């Protein structure tokens, strides 16, 4: 069973590569027919970009998606960048899921696009999302929104968050493949994709059962996931947000899980810790800004509407 599913996951990557070269979605059909026997090198290579084109692409398509949590947005230089993979790491109940839910709610409320939410720990809470959406003040300022009753507004916002549960790595491969296929369809038929954010909460719980030990397969699957996520991010201007847990590093200290080879994968790494009500976010890695900066903010759980008690 797992062998076949694994192969279908692997097939996802190869067929995906063949399906969409960045330069020429329009001649995709011709080349499919003409070059079936002899695929030429250029087809697979893609074309080079010069710096000005890159800059244009970045300014037009690679926006920062605001999480709605001001301190984190400032730390990240505006939010979660499209085309990049952002990782949030932190100990249990430090607020990782809250940042994910908040980002999803905020970006949905601002109508920036669809949000794909992959949940591995049954922690996607629709009622929490509804609470956050009600709390986002500038929702009223949206065009045409004030004309709709409150519930219809909530409905249209919540309809743009799509959630799927994923409980093993093969299911993840399958979902990502399916996502890639529909994104490609969107690109060909509608000239652009509607999905702007992909959240995986948490990627580490899918990878934890398979990495380590004597055998290298788990590690190679981890890197496959990384390759697929980065490809999706780049090709379809998705911002990818994943959460990672923390493991003991000895001496009572903790470090992000998944080890050294995962360390290079995220473009941006943000660590969150919580002490009573105060969250501290630290930038561990960033592509544009200095790392090591921190910000303290009130725990998102504070926005539940009451004051929270201290730990006993």
């Amino acid at each position, binding site marked *: 069973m797992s062998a076949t599913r694994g192969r279908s996951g692997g097939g996802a990557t190869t*067929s995906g590569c063949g399906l969409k070269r960045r330069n020429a979605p329009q001649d995709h059909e011709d080349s499919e027919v003409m070059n079936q026997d002899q695929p030429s090198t250029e087809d697979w290579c893609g074309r080079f970009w010069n710096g000005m084109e890159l800059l244009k692409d970045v300014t037009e398509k690679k926006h920062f998606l605001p999480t709605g949590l001001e301190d984190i947005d400032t730390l990240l230089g505006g939010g979660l960048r499209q085309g990049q993979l952002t990782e949030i790491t932190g100990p249990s109940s430090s607020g990782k899921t809250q940042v994910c839910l908040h980002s999803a709610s905020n970006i949905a409320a601002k109508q920036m696009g669809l949000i794909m939410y992959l949940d*591995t*720990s049954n922690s996607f809470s*629709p009622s929490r999302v509804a609470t956050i959406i009600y709390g986002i003040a500038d929702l009223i300022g949206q065009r045409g929104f004030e004309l709709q009753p409150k519930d219809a507004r909530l409905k249209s916002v919540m309809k743009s968050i*799509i959630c799927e549960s994923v409980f093993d790595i093969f299911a993840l491969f399958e979902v990502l493949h399916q996502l890639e296929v529909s994104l*490609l369809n969107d690109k060909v038929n509608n000239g652009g994709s509607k999905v702007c954010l992909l959240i995986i909460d948490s990627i580490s719980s899918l990878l*934890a*059962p398979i990495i380590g030990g004597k055998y290298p397969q788990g590690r190679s699957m981890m890197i496959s996931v990384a390759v697929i996520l980065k490809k999706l991010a780049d090709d379809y201007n998705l911002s990818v947000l994943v959460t990672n847990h923390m493991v003991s590093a000895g001496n009572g200290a903790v470090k992000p899980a998944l080890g050294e080879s995962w360390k290079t994968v995220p473009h941006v790494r943000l660590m969150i810790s919580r002490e009573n009500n105060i969250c501290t976010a630290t930038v561990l890695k960033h592509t544009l800004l200095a790392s090591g900066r921190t910000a303290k903010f009130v725990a998102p759980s504070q926005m539940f509407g*009451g004051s929270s*008690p201290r730990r006993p």
Partner: protein
Amino acid sequence: MSYTGSAPASSSLYWKGMESSGDPPILAGAQSAWDMLSDEQSQKHITTGSGDLNNILGGGIHCKEVTEIGGVPGVGKTQLGIQLAINVQIPVEYGGLGGKAVYIDTEGSFMVERVYQIAEGCISDILEHFPHSHEKSSSGQKQLQPEHFLADIFYFRICSYTEQTAAINYLEKFLGEHKDVRIVIIDSVTFHFRQDFDDMALRTRVLSGLSLKLMKIAKTYNLAVVLLNQVTTKFTEGSFQLTLALGDSWSHSCTNRLILYWNGNDRYAYLDKSPSLPVASAPYAVTGKGVRDAVSSNHKRVRVT
């Protein structure tokens, strides 16, 4: 699972979506947050027996979620576990779920006489709340026998971590055959994993695999999974502190975490982790009838600062 990844297969998927809803689904089978919200709002929760405890849990133990309950020995973890196995069976007409329970006992602490007692306590409370149902048809009355409550608990006694892993793997099949099970209780998830493991990395892998299986079961069969956990001491910053057992990786593997602790002579529960609810604590009591409100609490939500 049958698609091949070629363009024609995917376009048929696309058009199917266009026909049905007018908008192509990005992912077949995925739900929007709006649909999930209405699902969630129609869900009933499993009462703990204590109103204060239900309050901090947002109405009780939630289905489709994994809840971890931890605490020092003797604080009432098993009592709460048994109480939930009974309460899940409260018939629908009395405001319950009318489901069955799976109880996986690794420590041998499931005392069936006590279960009988708690079932009796539960029934007497139901009759107190619904005095008129006494005169009602005997069909409803028939269910309200402690014997019926006992008969609807499926009990597994587990004596090693191999058995425990096997039992959890088997659960998926078992639950497919017993669709009316609404709660799975594992008392405790820890016991066998605290010994016999030389390779701690292997233990972490086995446990994280188990936790994903339990997550899947909870979601697929729309039931609550309750894991009881022991405490351990951890040496941090020059002092020993009590934390839940099984380490840092395991701490990520539940949706909600409730910690039971003593505050003087009173028992308290502290909601430590939840995706939808604030951290809060509430007192509770373990009486002859089972888990109930602490008498002094006056039915108000009490927070400890």
